């Protein structure tokens, strides 16, 4: 990673959710449409407090429901604007129909899920139990979101820009899959530089498909996800799959700690990867050669990297705040060559490093 130099006063202390709001304004997002739900309401609250409509012209609106909010994102994105929403697990379930439409419409958009424990109304405590929903579809039809998993307040800020860059590059919705820990905790963060929102001319150039009103001489731009001709509909699906193939080839992101000499590999994402880092340090003090692979993109999943590392380790421990979801992608990467174990906590209980260490010791014995 290239080193960044910054003035001291550019370092702020804030919650991950607040960082998302600041980063959205600074990135030049055109529209945010939200609905209150714990533990992510600070995103909407911070935006309302910062009043970006007076500075950048960004539209911020508290919708009547998560369903309305995601459809506002769909409508805004259809006009070529950079639009986003955020919610937490039950609210994200409500948005799934809209997300499927956004994916089908090949529209760029950012959806932030600050996960809490489920199922049902569940708890407001942190969880990672929406991994399946985020990476395997969630809504109806064959589609994928690009899923980014931040592990720090800094990444919550950075992934707003990265998310929109990827969304516009591939014309595909992006989900930032955070959790109640990174959303709520306060850390130092360097906010991204201010950049102006795109002008209508720039949008017309970047998004010739945008529904903006038809100038004379241009054919109507129609944002539709309906195609009754099965041959044409299959063609649409093939085009989507081609996009997913390109994304899988080019956008896999991950981070590794101490994997050069590791005999045991922990795979964990988001805030859990940081808990595991502490466990890894303690394990190494006891002479256990433990390394960590932290997938940053959960879709596309770092399959090849898991496969590569698996060739030199005795076992893999997948640590998640759920009953075992990402472990399926780890297992799929391995072709059963290495034992894969899972350690998870559920329902809002967060493991501490000693728990992970104990889980590690159990698989070593």
């Amino acid at each position, binding site marked *: 990673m290239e080193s960044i130099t910054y003035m001291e006063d550019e370092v702020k202390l804030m919650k991950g959710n607040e960082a998302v709001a600041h980063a959205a304004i600074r990135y030049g997002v055109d529209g945010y449409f939200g609905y209150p739900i714990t533990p992510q309401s600070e995103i909407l609250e911070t935006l309302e407090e910062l009043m970006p409509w007076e500075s950048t012209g960004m539209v911020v*609106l508290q919708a009547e429901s998560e369903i*309305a909010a995601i459809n506002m994102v*769909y409508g805004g994105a259809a006009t070529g604007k950079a639009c986003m929403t955020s919610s937490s697990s039950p609210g994200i379930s409500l948005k799934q129909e809209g997300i499927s439409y956004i994916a089908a419409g090949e529209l760029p958009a950012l959806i932030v899920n600050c996960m809490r424990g489920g199922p049902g109304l569940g708890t407001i405590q942190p969880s990672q139990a929406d991994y399946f929903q985020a990476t395997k579809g969630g809504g109806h039809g064959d589609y994928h979101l690009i899923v980014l998993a931040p592990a720090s307040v800094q990444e919550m800020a950075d992934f707003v820009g990265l998310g929109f860059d990827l969304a516009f590059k591939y014309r595909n919705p992006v989900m930032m899959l955070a959790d109640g820990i990174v959303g709520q905790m306060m850390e130092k963060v360097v906010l991204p530089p201010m950049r102006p929102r795109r002008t209508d001319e720039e949008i017309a150039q970047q998004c010739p498909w945008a529904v903006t*009103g038809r100038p004379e001489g241009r054919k*109507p731009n129609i944002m539709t996800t309906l195609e009754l001709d099965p041959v044409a509909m299959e063609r649409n699906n093939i085009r989507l799959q081609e996009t997913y193939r390109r994304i899988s080839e080019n956008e896999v992101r991950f981070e590794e700690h101490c994997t050069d000499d590791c005999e045991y590999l922990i795979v964990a994402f988001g805030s859990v990867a940081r808990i595991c880092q502490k466990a890894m340090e303690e394990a190494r003090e006891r002479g256990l050669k433990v390394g960590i692979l932290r997938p940053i993109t959960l879709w596309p999943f770092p399959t090849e990297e898991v496969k590569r590392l698996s060739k030199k380790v005795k076992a893999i421990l997948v640590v998640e705040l759920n009953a075992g979801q990402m472990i399926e992608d780890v297992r799929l990467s391995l072709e059963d060559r290495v034992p894969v174990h899972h350690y998870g906590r559920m329902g809002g209980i967060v493991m501490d490093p000693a728990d992970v260490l104990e889980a590690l010791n159990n698989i070593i014995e």
Partner: protein
Amino acid sequence: MTREEIKQADNIVATKPRLLNDNTMHYCPGCSHGVVHKLVAEVIEEMGAEHIAIGIAPVGCAVMAYNYLDIDWIEAAHGRAPAIATAAKRLNPSRLVFTYQGDGDLAAIGTAETIHAANRGENIAIIFINNGIYGMTGGQMAPTTLEGQVTSTTPYGRRVELNGYPLKISELLAMLDGTCYVTRQSVHTAASVRKAKKALRKAFENSMAGRGTSVVEVVSTCNSGWKMTPAKANEWMEEHMFAKYPIGDLKDTTADQ
């Protein structure tokens, strides 16, 4: 007089609007959608607004409205058109944004989006085709289906103790502070077509003037769903639909403007 002599500008009283293209409409013969489409095309054309017009199509019979009107369109998920219109208009305030929705879309699955967009006073026009039935899916009960009316899901007629009452959603919308103009029209006679066109023009002008939400309900026929001839459907509409859904303005705060 030859044909060419007759076709002088002075003699022409009606033509196909330029924005209505040559695609064959999928609507049943006798359906009101075609007439309302033509009126929307005429009004946009007369306002010179095609370069700023954004239509939001529903799920229902009019889902493919974009196949017939040569303007930019966004097709909505079922019932969500007012939410989509909200964002399209707020992010593009210089645009003429309107939704085109049926009774199931607007008054059943999309009730929340309809009421809240209207209550926020979004500067959009809502065109509401009320034919008292789900046309596209084959004639099931709609929220606006009349008491006693036979549909495929009320084969013995709608019974209020089972299905509740026909929903007078335009009256409800007229109560909201965010609406500036709520009117109920029809398009089954030459006179009613002229009035409906005026209402549409007014609704579109309200949107562009930032006066709030305008709603134009068009009480319509669905002769296929009602299982009647087009002529009989018009009679039945006058007798039964108009009794429950009387034609006329429900609200107009823009009368002096």
